[in-house]
């Protein structure tokens, strides 16, 4: 008995000594994080800061390309090489959550001191939910609104302080602003046959009372007809059909379009390169007083279900969340948080624009969430393109999309 007691004490002493002598490294838990952020963006910087805290959790980072996030993640997951934490684009969150590839965080969030669901904008939060449970935490958010060139408004006799508020006003303004002789289109946006097209179109449909579940409703047809008018009258470039939002807004910056529909990611380039006075306003609505809506972009954090260290991974996420107030100041991204105000940047045009975007965020709706979102989105893109190239009427195109979506939903 005695010997055993001494032996135990000895072992305990040894353990204590060794834990003092060898700093935490030996027992460090390693958490791997994948995201698309590069050197000047949040993830790698937050991770570097976190590793300096020496919490006994060591975080390793891998940057993946935007286009490959899902395919890389699926490949890694199905061969058992998934990271612990990943940042995934919000419409693709449900794809993983619905299959329990992501960890259910509901209980951990309920107990957490740091992560509180009430602090988040409803749109981004909804995109992390599946079946009433939390499968992730919004990382950042963005939305789209209408940029307009104030100098061109003045030149064409429009009031630069009264940008268009309804679809009719938007089309009228575009007609007045379009000037083929000067190589100026009234409006630029993107109807590209990829997720960007859906991202731009859905808000229009939603404002008019439709949704992806009833995409052939009257409002959606009206929205698509409005787009069709804009393209048929050449108020926007025909290349709208194949051009991304970034490249389209490039033509706004270079003075070849008077208005542009795009998001806050454009702000820095515009401040640096647009040689004219510009402003931002909320997306025009179908008619005065109609319900507002907007698109919602950006990524969510999630923990893979097959992680060996769920507790530690969640601690890392808690750290990320605790740093949300640096999100805009240090990295220029909008946190998905209601309780964090965007600090002034000192650049008046940018500050005014950010106010509009924060307001617009309140109306932002997630795409889905649905595990087969890409197929739903594809049906919508096909309809947009079929109608805008004149191969179908808007009604026919959207009826076809509705049939395809119904097949997915059932």
């Amino acid at each position: 008995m005695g010997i055993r007691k001494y032996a135990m004490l000895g072992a305990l002493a040894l353990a204590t000594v060794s834990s003092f002598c060898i700093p935490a490294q030996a027992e460090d838990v390693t958490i791997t994080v994948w995201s698309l952020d590069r050197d000047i963006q949040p993830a790698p910087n937050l991770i570097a800061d976190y590793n300096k805290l020496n919490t006994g959790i060591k975080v390793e980072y891998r940057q993946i390309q935007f286009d490959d996030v899902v395919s890389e993640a699926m490949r890694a997951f199905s061969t058992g090489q998934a990271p612990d934490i990943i940042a995934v684009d919000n419409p693709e969150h449900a794809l993983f959550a619905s299959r329990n590839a992501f960890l259910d965080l509901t209980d951990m969030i309920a107990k957490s001191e740091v992560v509180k669901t009430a602090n988040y904008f409803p749109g981004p939060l909804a995109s992390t939910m599946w079946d009433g449970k939390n499968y992730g935490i919004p990382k950042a958010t963005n939305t789209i609104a209408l940029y307009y060139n104030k100098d061109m408004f003045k030149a064409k006799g429009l009031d630069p302080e009264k940008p268009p508020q309804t679809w009719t006003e938007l089309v009228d303004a575009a007609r007045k602003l379009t000037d083929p002789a000067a190589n100026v289109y009234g409006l630029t946006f993107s109807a590209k046959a990829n997720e960007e097209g859906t991202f731009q179109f859905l808000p229009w449909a939603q404002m008019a009372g439709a949704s992806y579940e009833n995409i052939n409703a009257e409002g959606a047809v009206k929205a698509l007809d409005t787009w069709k008018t804009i393209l048929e009258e050449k108020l926007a470039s025909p290349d709208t059909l194949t051009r991304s939002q970034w490249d389209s807004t490039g033509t706004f910056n270079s003075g070849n379009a008077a208005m542009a529909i795009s998001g806050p990611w454009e702000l820095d380039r515009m401040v640096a390169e647009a040689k004219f006075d510009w402003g931002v306003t909320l997306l025009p609505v179908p008619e005065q007083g109609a319900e507002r809506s907007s698109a919602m972009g950006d990524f969510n954090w999630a923990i893979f279900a097959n992680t060996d260290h769920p507790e530690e991974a969640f601690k890392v996420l808690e750290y990320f969340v605790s740093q949300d107030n640096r999100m805009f100041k240090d990295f220029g991204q909008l946190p998905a948080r209601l309780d964090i105000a965007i600090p002034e940047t000192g650049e008046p045009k940018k500050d005014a624009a950010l106010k509009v975007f924060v307001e617009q965020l309140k109306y932002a709706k997630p795409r889905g969430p649905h595990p087969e979102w890409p197929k739903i989105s594809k049906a919508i893109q096909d309809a947009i393109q079929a109608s805008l190239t004149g191969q179908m009427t808007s009604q026919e195109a959207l009826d076809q999309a509705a049939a395809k979506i119904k097949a997915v939903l059932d």
Partner: protein
Amino acid sequence: MKRVLSSITDGRGFDIALVALPLAFLLLLSGLPLLYNVLMSFQEVDMFSLGTLWRPFVGFENYRKLFEQPETLPILGNTAIFVTASIAGQFLIGFGLALFFWTNFPGASWLRGLFLVSWVMPGLVVGAIWNWILSGDFGVLNFLLRESGLISGNIFWRSDPNYSLWAVVIANVWLGTSFNMILLSVGLSAIPGDLYEAAELDGANAWQRFWTITLPMMRSSIGALIALGLIFTLQQFDLFAAITSGGPNNSSNVTQYWAWDMSFRQYDFAKGATISVIMIVFVMLASIVYVRSTRHEVRG
């Protein structure tokens, strides 16, 4: 044992070893992945069952569903147009250039080397540049056509369903011309000059010399080039992604882009694999034609 060894150093075994090793390597690294795709086309595939081979079999269900889709036949047609037009364009322009530089004036070899630029430029960059060149509003091609008075209004190369496929063909011909030219140059320079001298003495004109000497002597080069051109054209992906994304409304979609879109945009891996099997069947037919054409090769 000794006989095997001596046959390897000095007989048939030598030839067999030289072929067997690379073939084994290829079967392992290309053959198995190919079979994996064929297998998937008969299965129900789920993004999370990518790591295993045992998935529920569905017979020809994927094929049936694929051919029910209205876009399938137009996309197959686009692929045929794209492949034929690209190969024809690349080959004719490449051959023309190779013959032109063959005349060997001062500076010819320097300039010929510069043409290889299309071979070194990364796909992403080539795509982006052609995207700009072919743009309707600020595109350089329209600018030049307009300035030279060939067109009055802009052609929306990328966004007009009548032109979008040809926009990619133009870019792809540019991309493949250099490779055709350089290989045809090598082939041309291997033709013994005395053949031409003899023909000239016999009174054959330039045109006759081309048909009776150049073409037959180039037969194996041309066969190889067209076979490879077919494969490169079928693998062309970056240009579609950069210029049209297969749009508008699938008017410029081709099988290779479509298969990728199915697999990695809509995560329908089984359909993606099914499309790739259709591609394999087409290339199989073309390969048989190539292999048969080598039967008539002239060995120098």
